[in-house]
């Protein structure tokens, strides 16, 4: 009697863990429609125009209203101290791409976390000022961030080795001169 329940239990656990292993795989994604990460930069114009001076931040890191504000003329004139100018056509292409792939407009799980951490009346222009981002980075010693090779929290690629793939998973974090970090 006991053996029956034991073997049933073992089979159940076996199936459970077998299925768990698919949790982050494409099989799971196929059924749930949900993808991990924040999405990759797929627009070559965006990659070029917005990835020349800094890391090409994925559209899924901010909500549509943030991108819309950032692309307004008065904001472009003072884009974090840089004066940007774009032809109308270029501007429209960039904004369309950003809005269509923004947090809240895609089915990437981590992108949704960014979006969910914001209140509707908040329109951050800095990814580093979103509640989700702050929560994820607030225990890191300042000296790890301020060291020469990293500089500041906007330099994602310095520590997130798969940032350019839209993958900010702990597993792939390698802080220069420090190593792995898990929160």
């Amino acid at each position, binding site marked *: 009697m006991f053996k029956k329940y034991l073997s049933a239990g073992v089979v159940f656990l076996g199936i459970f863990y077998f299925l768990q292993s698919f949790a982050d795989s494409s099989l799971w994604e196929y059924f749930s429609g949900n993808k991990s990460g924040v999405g990759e930069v797929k627009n070559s114009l965006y990659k070029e125009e917005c990835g*020349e*001076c*800094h*890391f090409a931040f994925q559209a899924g890191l901010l909500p549509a209203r943030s991108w819309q504000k950032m692309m307004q003329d008065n904001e472009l004139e003072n884009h*974090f*101290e*840089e*004066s*940007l*100018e774009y032809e109308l056509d270029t501007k429209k292409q960039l904004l369309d791409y950003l809005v269509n792939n923004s947090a809240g407009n895609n089915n990437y799980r981590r992108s949704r976390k960014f979006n969910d951490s914001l209140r509707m009346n908040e329109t951050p222009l800095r990814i580093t000022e979103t509640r989700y981002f702050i929560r994820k980075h607030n225990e890191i010693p300042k000296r790890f961030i301020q060291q020469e*090779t*990293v*500089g*500041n929290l*906007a*330099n994602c690629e*310095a520590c997130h080795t798969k940032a350019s793939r839209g993958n900010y998973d702990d597993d792939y974090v390698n802080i220069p001169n420090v190593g792995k970090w898990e929160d």
Partner: protein
Amino acid sequence: MKKFILAMMVSLIFSLHSHANQLDFQKLYESWAGSSLFSPDASLGKKMWDQKFYKGRSCSSCHTNNLNDSGLHVKTKKIIKPLSPTKNAKRLSSTKKINKWLKRNCKFTFNRECTLDEKINFIEYIKTY
């Protein structure tokens, strides 16, 4: 004789090809100058390259003072490919890009647009690499 003519034709074709992508700098400078006079001076460009301006910024802050080297954006730490047209064939190959970056970077570094002479001298300095 035939060989000579053939050699001349081949070298003519080669010489044409090597200039095919060369920007017409005179034309570019004239487009900036309008009716003003200018006299290009790479050494003045080099001199200004290291000088500190707005918030202590200089051209060399990001581009270093050896244009064969890669640079680093002071704020974002993004790697900037060498400005040397010899090391980096894309440099000084597009009027549009030259105009874009001179405007943006002069505003960032000097908090104003560069003057006609400054722009010309910077291009002339970059050409020396």
